């Protein structure tokens, strides 16, 4: 029993090593002076960071990424909130289909979404722009927003909204004074999580962006060339940004939820 427990623990550790080692490696190699990433390591350098910071393409891509993930997260969270609230508050015909249209996108391979959106956006003339990526990313991220906010609403006392009406708040006022404040942690969490997903998405972005690359698409294009340690530097930055976003998202929801669940 003892040994099997230790074996299991070791195994869990191995799984975590497998999951996190690429990230760690990427960070280490981003400071490695050798052009080709080999062991033993060369000397310490910040050369690759200097290279990318001097690269106009990088800054352009970073700017695009920022705009896209900011806008996509705002729109997706708005859509997710509306849908979650509708589902929470009302019972109506076609509710299953209604939930289906928001929850389905993550189950469809990104490459298919990419092709479908590229074709459709070209057809209606909204392809190849920064806003094309934003539209696409809202579809991909809204389900996450919806799920987070819906779970939060599940934790709400069923009578809370009615209590606000009962005390003289109209539906709109109750929305502002009760529903929104109650959902705030989930909304914050949703904003950060959807921003993270959007910030990392490259397949659809690559297809619909035309010349307006985002950071991950920029990475994709470097990778398609030769092995360039720049990738480790860009990758490390991208990873740090998205990891920060996801951690904030998790903290917002976990900590607030735990507190009010007691």
């Amino acid at each position, binding site marked *: 029993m003892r040994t099997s427990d230790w074996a299991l623990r070791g195994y*869990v550790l191995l799984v975590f090593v497998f999951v996190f080692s690429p990230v760690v490696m990427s960070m280490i190699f981003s400071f490695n002076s050798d052009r080709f990433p080999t062991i033993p390591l060369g000397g310490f350098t910040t050369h690759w960071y200097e290279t990318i910071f001097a690269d106009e393409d990088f800054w352009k891509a970073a700017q695009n990424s920022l705009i896209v993930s900011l806008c996509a997260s705002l729109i997706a969270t708005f859509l997710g909130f509306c849908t979650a609230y509708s589902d929470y508050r009302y019972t109506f015909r076609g509710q299953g289909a209604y939930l289906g*249209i928001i929850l389905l996108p993550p189950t469809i391979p990104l490459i298919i979404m990419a092709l479908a959106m590229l074709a459709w956006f070209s057809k*209606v003339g909204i392809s190849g722009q920064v806003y094309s990526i934003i539209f696409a990313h809202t579809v991909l991220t809204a389900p996450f927003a919806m799920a987070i906010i819906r779970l939060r609403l599940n934790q709400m006392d069923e009578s809370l909204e009615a209590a606000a009406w009962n005390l003289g708040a109209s539906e709109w006022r109750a929305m502002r004074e009760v529903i929104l404040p109650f959902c705030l942690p989930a909304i914050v969490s949703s904003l950060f999580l959807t921003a993270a997903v959007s910030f990392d998405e490259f397949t659809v972005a690559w297809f619909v962006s035309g010349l307006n690359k985002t950071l991950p698409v920029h990475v994709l294009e470097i990778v398609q060339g030769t*092995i360039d340690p720049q990738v*480790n530097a860009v990758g490390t930055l991208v990873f740090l940004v998205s990891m920060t976003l996801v951690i904030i998202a998790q903290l917002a929801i976990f900590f607030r939820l735990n507190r009010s669940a007691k």
Partner: protein
Amino acid sequence: MRRLNAYALTFRLPIIIWQAIFFIGPLFFMIAMSFFLVKNYRMVEAFEFKNWDKMLSRNYVWDSYWYTLGLAALSSAVASLVAFPAAFALAYRSSESVRRWAIFLLIIPFFTSYLVRTFSWYVILAESGVINAGLGYIGLGPYTMLNTMFGTIVGYMTLTLPLVVILQTVSLASADRSLIQASQNLGCPPWRTIFAVILPAAKTGLIVAALFAFILSFGDFVAPYYLGGSKPPTLPILIIDTTKAGQQWPRAAVVAVIMMVTLFVVAFTAIFLAYRKRGSK
């Protein structure tokens, strides 16, 4: 039945309109597009089966199809098997707080930088990479790991393993513990408890986890392209090649529709198996 008012519509309508334009529209257009024609590098709207005939009669498409299907199935199996002991340990041999932290940590990679992590494997698995360097010290290798099926599977695991561990852990942890204890009290050896009690109790969650691994692997192009060497190309790579080179969007759409149909069949089968009542076998 409550009458619809402005308030209700304000919250109900946005997603319907938005998804109609940016989700349903694209999907249906893509299906329609698979029947379009391409003349002089321009797409012409039509309703012909030309693309379907072409694609379905090509051997390389079918090779690619079976290869992709096999890889995704293999990935799903490997992810499930590799994840299970870890999920088991987290569900039954860890405290509540350790489990929470583990899930907290595993959510991070699921939402971050798959591309960067895959590329990092490229560095780790390379002929002169970290693993071969390590093996070299003890006089082994070098082994070729890049551009092999092994490389592809490692890439798929990067994508799927965190999610599969999370889903399995949650479903195991929520399975009825009293059953497991009863089984142990009745003197069942541990591995029989796993097969006779734990697996059936957590069946739904385990199948759903495997299904997600399948869907993610089936649609991924990064792992088979960068780590697997794209020989033969998988369906997603086929879509990229067909789309990016030569404006053959309708043919890419054919491949995409084939993929979607396949996924539907697999998903429905999996869900049927997952929710089938026990004892009907």
